[in-house]
């Protein structure tokens, strides 16, 4: 028995250590692969907008900007929508509807990203181009900040479209996880709150959400992680232009889209290395996002004095 325990202990421990080794290996190879580009451009890589394969002068500003902007759009749309669906499903939905809606949400998560890309290109982009974008442009034409956000010709594809697609793609993550954690709230707590006269809104606001905060934030972060790294669907609809534009309707690019687009035909060493350095930057961004989430959770837990 003791011998078995010994093996079991070591087996699980080496599995856990293996994760660290793999992560370390990924970091090491990313840094090693980036060295030629780091040597060639230094910190200028992070402040240059131009991306010119002909002269082998590369800068990461446009892809970093595009990655952050599209992910932000996605979260602005998906977080309230996802939480709304989850609250409806757990608290308000008639029992007959619960399963179909729940299954539909999970099916949404199972669709491969290339399908989202094709759908975005052939269905969503033309729809936005004909019906949504012209309206946005004329509606916001006189409002100072919004008019520069929604400026320019309606191409149909661009950063806003990519943000929409990403929102749909991360929605199931946020919804499923929130719904599952909402279900973990002990019924007796909700019943007690209702018993003292709380409305459904107040039960959600003062009982369910505080009880499940950590899980909900986890779901949101998982969604954000997917939005930051999503490749194929974005490549199809973002317009793939290495430019920073104030308009959300303008074509842009993201880190992962740039890598996917250009890796196969990148011949020069510096070119390949610049693409790997983009990968390293995405890794760092994701790392900081997750670290910030952890930090936020820590603060919340300290505050609630748990």
């Amino acid at each position, binding site marked *: 028995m003791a011998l078995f325990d010994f093996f079991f202990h070591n087996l699980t421990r080496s599995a856990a250590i293996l994760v660290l080794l793999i992560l370390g290996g990924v970091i090491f190879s990313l840094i090693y692969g980036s060295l030629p580009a780091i040597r060639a451009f230094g910190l200028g890589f992070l402040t240059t907008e131009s991306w*010119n*394969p002909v002269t082998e002068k590369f800068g990461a500003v446009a892809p970093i900007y595009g990655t952050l902007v599209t992910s932000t759009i996605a979260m602005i749309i998906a977080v309230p929508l996802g939480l709304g669906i989850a609250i409806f499903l757990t608290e308000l939905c008639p029992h007959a509807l619960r399963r179909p809606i729940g299954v539909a949400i999970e099916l949404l998560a199972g669709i491969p990203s290339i399908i989202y890309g094709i759908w975005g290109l052939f269905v969503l982009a033309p729809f936005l181009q004909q019906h949504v974008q012209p309206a946005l442009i004329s509606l916001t034409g006189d409002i100072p900040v919004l008019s520069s956000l929604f400026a320019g010709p309606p191409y149909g594809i661009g950063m806003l479209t990519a943000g929409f697609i990403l929102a749909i793609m991360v929605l199931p993550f946020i919804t499923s996880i929130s719904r599952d954690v909402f279900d973990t709230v002990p019924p007796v707590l909700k019943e007690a709150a209702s018993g003292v006269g709380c409305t459904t809104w107040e039960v959600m606001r003062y009982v369910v959400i505080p009880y499940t905060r950590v899980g909900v934030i986890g779901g949101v972060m998982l969604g954000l992680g997917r939005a930051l790294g999503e490749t194929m669907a974005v490549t199809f609809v973002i317009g*793939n*232009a290495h430019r920073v534009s104030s308009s959300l309707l303008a074509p842009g690019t993201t880190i992962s889209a740039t890598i996917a*687009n*250009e890796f*196969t*035909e990148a*011949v020069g060493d510096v070119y390949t290395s610049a693409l790997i350095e983009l990968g390293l930057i995405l890794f760092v961004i994701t790392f900081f996002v997750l670290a910030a989430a952890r930090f936020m959770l820590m603060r919340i837990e300290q505050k609630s004095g748990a």
Partner: protein
Amino acid sequence: MIFKFFNRIALAATVALATASAAVAVDISGAGATFPYPIYAKWADTYKKETGAGLNYQSIGSGGGIKQIKARTVTFGASDQPLKAEDLEAAGLVQWPQVIGGIVPVVNLDGVKSGDLVLDGQTLAAIFLGEIVKWDDAAIKKLNPKQKLPSTAIAVVHRSDGSGTTFNFTNYLSKVSADWKAKVGENASVEWPVGIGAKGNEGVANNVANTKGAIGYVEYAYAKQNKLTFTKLVNKDGKAVAPTTPTFQAAAANADWANAPGFYQILTDQPGAQSWPITAATFILLPKQPQDVAAAGEALKFFGWAFAKGGKAAEELDYIPMPAGVVALIKKSWAHVTDASGKPLASN
């Protein structure tokens, strides 16, 4: 004990590999350009039925093909962008053009049908530089005095992924416009001054088809299959030609292959009244002294067979076979592919 065990596994693996490679020695592996993939796959299929020798071609892109053949992980590499003679020398490779395609500008303009609109190189370059922004610009009107041109904005569509199509297109613009050469240059991907990037030929085709006032460039086969509106182009001799099989073949035949070391010849902007200005060849790369002599010999047999018998299949897929005169030159160059003792592998 453990060491012995691993030794035995290694031995067994070696034996298995040796017998495996003996059994399938005639199979060829290739990797590279995506553009010729359909025709290579079709040729391979017919060739296997006729001779029993199989070909496994991975269409991973020209850059990938060049990397793989330099690392000698495949029998041959394929690229839409030829290597310069000194690069071939350094890597110990021979190179030849295998099949021809054409790149055509496509537009989406109300009332304009294929071949209605005429453009020339300077105008095309100015459009893609963002200097000409309206369809009724004086430069376009001058080339099309009879055509009614709308005052709509030009939406430029280009490839977002690195591609041989882009290489040949930007190579043409660099040849005909000093401005383009200075500001953008030629490569499989470039820093586009304007426009939206779409993935693959199908992406460009779709974006042009969906956007009024759009202009893009695609492989001829995509323009034809998607029924896109192509333009005529004014060639080096000043004649406006349409993209057709004879004009592609004219460009290939008029190129000066005999004086191009390593067949480094890009078929854009070739002389001749009939030549389509953005014609492109796709190239095969083979080591001069291949490690796997049997596979390399089989590859030469396969490509010789394709020159002799694959022309009809190529045309069915909207590729253009190499002109006979060029094929004779190519076959002569195969004498440089030898085994370790210096004996040529090609039988013809």
